[in-house]
């Protein structure tokens, strides 16, 4: 754990935002800054147990992915005042309204797209739940071990980094699927459309954001499951950070006299 000590000491050099100026109302700091400082100060006073608690609950937010959609692709057009939508869950696709999948497939058959995959059609829908479940279990375990001082906060950051890598891989896979789905079209399609340069038109929805596709406006955005995952991951980073502060507190107590005379 020695490796982490150096940066923590740097945070405590004289004149840092946590010095005695905090208690001087005429120091010219804005209210929000002072507020954050108070949080910082309070957080600093927490011990490693608090950090472990955060680490323990953070991964639980990922369980939301088993209930709520991760992502959503919505197709709106003048003749669809209530847009067609696709909710992407970790274990399969669901229509935003009950019959949207059927209706999207109905439209897509004109341009020769494959029908939307059922859970058994893609390995991702069986593997993703296992990966997420394992990561939750791992995260909670790290939190527990941290609580009983068996692990340091570095593990908290470690979990976050691993989860981030998996997330990026997931996004990459998702994008690859959309590329295949949007460009690998039936050669006998009823309508074969081309870009102005003569290349076949792609119907790949955007990974994130808005894109005009023929008469449709396609919108692709994260949904509640992803936001919960985001919150959970932020909590684990926070856990790492709090854990780091708790280390610095020991250092601080050793240097108290020096700060007081500063």
């Amino acid at each position, binding site marked *: 754990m020695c490796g982490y000590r150096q940066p923590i000491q740097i945070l405590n050099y004289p004149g840092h935002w946590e010095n005695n100026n905090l208690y001087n109302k005429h120091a010219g700091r804005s209210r929000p800054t002072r507020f954050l400082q108070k949080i910082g100060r309070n957080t600093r006073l927490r011990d490693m147990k608090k950090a472990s608690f955060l680490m323990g609950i953070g991964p639980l937010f990922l369980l939301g992915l088993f209930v709520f959609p991760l992502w959503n692709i919505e197709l709106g057009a003048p003749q669809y005042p209530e847009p067609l939508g696709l909710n992407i869950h970790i274990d399969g696709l669901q229509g935003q309204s*009950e*019959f949207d999948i059927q*209706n999207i497939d109905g439209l897509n058959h*004109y341009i020769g797209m494959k029908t939307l995959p059922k859970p058994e059609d893609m390995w991702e829908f069986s593997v993703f739940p296992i990966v997420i479940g394992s990561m939750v279990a791992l995260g909670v375990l790290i939190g527990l071990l941290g609580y009983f001082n068996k692990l340091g906060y570095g593990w908290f950051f470690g979990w976050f980094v691993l989860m981030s890598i998996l997330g990026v891989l997931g996004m990459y896979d998702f994008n690859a699927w959309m590329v295949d789905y949007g460009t690998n079209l039936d050669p006998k399609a009823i309508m074969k459309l081309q870009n102005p340069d003569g290349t076949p038109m792609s119907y790949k929805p955007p990974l994130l954001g808005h894109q005009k596709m023929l008469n449709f406006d396609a919108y692709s955005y994260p949904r509640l499951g992803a936001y919960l995952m985001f919150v959970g991951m932020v909590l684990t980073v926070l856990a790492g950070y709090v854990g780091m502060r708790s280390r610095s507190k020991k250092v601080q107590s050793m240097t108290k006299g020096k700060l007081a005379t500063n």
Partner: protein
Amino acid sequence: MKKIYYVIGGLLAATLLYIGCNQAAGTNTNGALASSAAEKVYVAPGEQDEFYAFLSGGYSGNLTVYGLPSGRMFKEIPVFSQFPTSGYGYSEETKPMLNTSFGFVPWDDSHHPDISQTNGELDGRWIFINGNNTPRIARISLETFETEEIIEIPNSAGNHSSSFITENTEYVIAGTRFSVPVPQRDMPINEYKGNFKGALSFISVAPETGRLDIKFQVLMPGFNYDLSHPGRGKSHGWHFFSTYNTEEANSLMEVNSSQNDKDFIAAINWKKIEEYVDNGGGTKMPANYAHNVYSHETHTGTSTMKKEVLTVDPNEVPGAIYFLPTPKSPHGCDVDPSGEYIIGSGKLSADLTVHSFTKMLAAIEAEKFDGEAYGIPILSFDDVMAGIVKSGGLGPLHTEFDASGNAYTTFFISSEVVKWRLGTWDVVDRKPTFYSVGHLMIPGGNSRKPFGKYVVAMNKITKDRYLPTGPEMEHSAQIYDISGEKMELIYDFPTHGEPHYAAGCPAELLAPKSKKIYRLDENKHPYGINNPSEARVERNGNEVHIYMSTIRSHFTPDNIEGVKVGDKVYFHITNHEQDFDVPHGFSIIGQNTSELLVMPGQTKTSIWEPKQVGVWPFYCTDFCSALHQEMQGYVRVSPANSNIELSWSLGE
């Protein structure tokens, strides 16, 4: 930790506040300018009307749905008439809906729609309407906007003082305009007087299903029972009918039934008669009338003949029926939102007579009778009359109410709408109509809770209001803004058939629950198929049943062989779409019925009897997609003695 929650909470609250403020600002900018008539009726593209209005179709036999204030027509709901647009009355499933004791009657004269109520307020479950010619009452669902049930009324003729709904939709009330021999028999017409009867039917409505059943019929003296309205509030439990021809004339009625200075409003205490009937009272009489019910599960109507009706002789239930003398052949018989005032519109006079329910009860209590008619006590006019509206107009017909104590009466002869105050009987305002207004409607105006923003006047004559279209033209309705002290004519719009009355309600009562599709997984049609893979053709003697599927944009199957001249070919079409507003149509050359218009999830059947050998095309009649023109198929028809096997295919 807590501080973090405060920060997050604070941010959330700030966001909500921001959104909230935005919305408030948005609504504030509206309405500041709305002053001209055009602005009042203008519903911008993409925006929706404030009210639904259901106008009777008169001799079209149907019911039309409009928006207010725009006057835009949204739909014609087929009720008593065949409707080739959808195949209603032509498809095998809907033919039973038009069955009667006279056989298949494909038309009627629809008159007075009324929306179901709970506690005297519109509840938007169903709308009812009467068929005047071959007496019938229909119930229409306000989720599907389709006719679900039609019941024929025996012993009735000219089913005109109908279909009015009691305060909790206990009954739909249907009175006869023409009195007839009961039971019907061969007898001289000029022996009408004293022998003919006027049947007033009380049709119970099952609270959950809406299912109709004639609970009892009161056999009244042989007058003409013209219009009626239920009591409400304090007068709930009573029903009031206007009468004319108390002279009981049977010929040259326009003279002979206009001789009495006063006819009657008949006040009927139906709760008392209901109690009498519930305790075993009344006489069961043999009858023959059709009861037709449409199921949204099987998408099929079934017709059952009923053989008995319970009749009540007024003299057997003393104290249940009284006559209130009312001048000059009253037409409209309207009850104000409080239930206190009963307004009789003497159509041959200038004045309106208002009776007081409280005074009526007092007169009954004191037994202040002024004679009797066929054993029914006649109350003294002066004892029941609450006031007379000296209108200055001529030919009052019908009155509706707003929520602030005003009444609005149409005057047919002087062609105007007159606004007056209940209680003081003072005329507040009058505005001409163009021309010869019959009835009028304020949304909820026939309930305890009117929405007094607009009045729609339904005119009998159109003349120069629109571009001419030859001798025959539609009628015209007019919308008046009644939100102020003075009425303001703001719009004209043509109406279909001849509306005799209308019912309206706030849009939010119906719009959210309007069905978009029928669920395929709830389709229990015996010839429906759940999946295009189940499509097939079966022969049963000379009947050929084609189980056919439609989905954008093909029929399954689309090539059929083995059909022979002389076969009865049933096309059972199931629409497998589950998307709003994607119907498919079906028609085949030489079809002796109409096309079918099949809604998503629905199954409909058309019968086709091929008469000539050949290969005959069928196609989709509803433009369903960019490939609608390709949605077609062929049936090969072989000679009657041919031995070609049945076969069917798609894409082979």
